[in-house]
């Protein structure tokens, strides 16, 4: 019995660890989409964040500097999306794909010297008082700073969105940019802030992946995590509180993949590796059905993007 509890706890915490980068992107993208903008470029922003964070950590030896630099890099790249979508009225999906290709190319190009480098990542809480707690102490001690920062940002984001005037305007922009304009607020500053915040979170997510989770840099290492996150925003119903269970879907499927391999289950690792894509996709199908029936909390400004015609 105890063995099963520990096994499940281990799986959950492993899921939380691998879900963290995705969770950060989901949170950022929720904020972006709440203003009526969709950004597929998060995949590229994540890669640029991962590469920059890893490179800065490798040169300075300070993972915190790496995380900061990653946030900056993600924000910088998101400016491209902001300029194209807000400045030039380009199609949001196309612009997102352009940012995705650019981010992938830039990170692969400038990241070459860092492939195979070793870095000193964050220490964990092993050996501190937390580790002595019964049952969960061992797992709590394995939590790392990026996990905590991401978890703390959930209440902060929801307080901002639901409890402040600026958050109210932010959401109203996403519901109808036209009406907001008529009420005397320009939607553009909000949408700009929303895209740049998404850049910050995806850059951070890149660092959470490369500096913290894997302590490693390989080109195109995000392998679709950013795109999965964009899908999970729908599963999370554009609500920061639901972002955690949605991201855990990815986390559980990924750690299940690793765990099943270590349990020597006789399934090809390549087939198991499809789980982190297929499980969110299946849940997405179920969520879309709810969406079709009752709206499901989708910002009205996104209707045109999601339902086409």
């Amino acid at each position, binding site marked *: 019995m105890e063995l099963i509890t520990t096994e499940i706890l281990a799986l959950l915490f492993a899921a939380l660890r691998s879900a963290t980068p995705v969770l950060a992107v989901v949170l950022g993208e929720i904020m972006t989409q709440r203003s009526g903008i969709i950004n597929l470029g998060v995949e590229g922003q994540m890669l640029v964040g991962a590469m920059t964070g890893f490179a800065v950590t490798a040169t300075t030896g300070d993972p915190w500097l790496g995380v900061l630099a990653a946030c900056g890099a993600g924000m910088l790249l998101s400016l491209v999306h902001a300029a194209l979508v807000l400045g030039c009225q380009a199609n949001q999906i196309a612009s997102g794909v352009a940012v995705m290709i650019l981010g992938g190319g830039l990170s692969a190009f400038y990241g070459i010297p860092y492939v195979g480098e070793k870095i000193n990542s964050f220490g964990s809480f092993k050996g501190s008082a937390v580790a002595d707690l019964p049952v969960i102490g061992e797992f709590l001690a394995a939590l790392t700073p990026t996990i905590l920062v991401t978890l703390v940002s959930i209440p902060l984001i929801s307080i901002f969105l639901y409890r402040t005037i600026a958050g109210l305007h932010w959401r109203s922009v996403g519901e109808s940019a036209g009406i907001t304009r008529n009420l005397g607020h320009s939607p553009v500053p909000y949408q700009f802030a929303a895209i740049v915040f998404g850049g910050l979170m995806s850059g951070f997510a890149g660092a959470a992946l490369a500096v913290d989770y894997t302590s490693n840099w390989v080109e195109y290492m995000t392998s679709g995590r950013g795109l999965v996150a964009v899908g999970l925003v729908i599963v999370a119903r554009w609500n920061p509180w639901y972002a955690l269970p949605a991201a855990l879907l990815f986390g559980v499927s990924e750690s299940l993949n690793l765990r099943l391999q270590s349990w020597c289950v006789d399934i090809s690792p390549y*087939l198991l590796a499809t789980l982190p*894509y297929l499980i969110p996709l299946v849940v997405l199908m179920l969520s879309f059905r709810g969406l079709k029936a009752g709206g499901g909390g989708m910002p009205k400004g996104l209707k045109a993007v999601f339902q086409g015609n």
Partner: protein
Amino acid sequence: MTFGTFFRNNSLKSRWFVSGPWVPALIMVIGFVLVTMAFFAINGRAPLNLFIEMVKGGFGDGYSFSETLVKTSPILLTALAIALPARLGLISVGAEGQLYLGALFGTGAVLLAFDQPGWLLMPLMLAGAMLGGALWGAIPGLMKTRLGVNETISTLLLNYVGILLVSFVVHGPWKNPDSLGWPATVEFPEGAILPQFFDTRVHMGLIFGIVAAVILHILVTHSRWGLSLQVSRSNPRVGATAGISYEKNVLVVMAIGGLLAGLAGIAEASVIQNRLQDGLATGYGLTGFLVAWLAGQHFLRIIPLSILMGGLMASADSLQLYAQLPKASADILQALLFIIVLAVGGLWYRRSST
């Protein structure tokens, strides 16, 4: 009439020679050339020389042009796989996965009918490839019409699944036992290699692409089906009253698109690799997406633009050779081109689109 009044009386935009579509196109080309040279300069390379090297690398002589055409075929086919659903207002990004599934099913057919003569093997292989691609296109189509799942997200996720499925078979059941750990199937028999032209690697895939582009153009502009796509796109309800099923049209365009991308996949496996292996054709799907947008989803314009983009990709090799710029520079240049086109196009057509 003085010089001044000439300009005042004839607003610049109303005159044909400044209002034609070639003006933004020219701005895009100039912008791309400038940005490319800036990219070279930032990386400490002589911009002009390198740009000339790049053009030579894609179009300089017979050999480099043939290599450009080799890269053109998958780009052309995948671009068509994006442009056809776009005619119905669908934004599919799934050509990459469809390409892999085409290669997977096509290879499956080859392995099943391995000892058959070429006249039987080749059609079986192509049919398999078309089936695989069409399947991978139809799934997101079905998810769209049945459950309302946004096709952009489902196609993007299915790309990764498709690539992993190919990895699965080449590492697992279809792995050639004699290949000493190298994950690949056995070499295709003679009868399963698509015909090539003029002693180069340019292959039938290019012909498939051009023929498909022309047929699609004619169908979409001159047939009842093309008209039904138009009606479906602008107002599915009106279409339904006229007996046009939006759902059926979604399935058809996604499946045909996938079928074309599937052909691109089997052509890569058959001619370029001679076998199915990992890393079959990384990135062609996204390049196809880019080309379809550059062409404004216009089937005939996709042909020359695919050749240009094939040149850009072929010249990445020469960038590597002459300037030691990593291969990723081709991705960066593609993205910059896309960004410029979106920016100029967006600004130029802003008034007409609102």
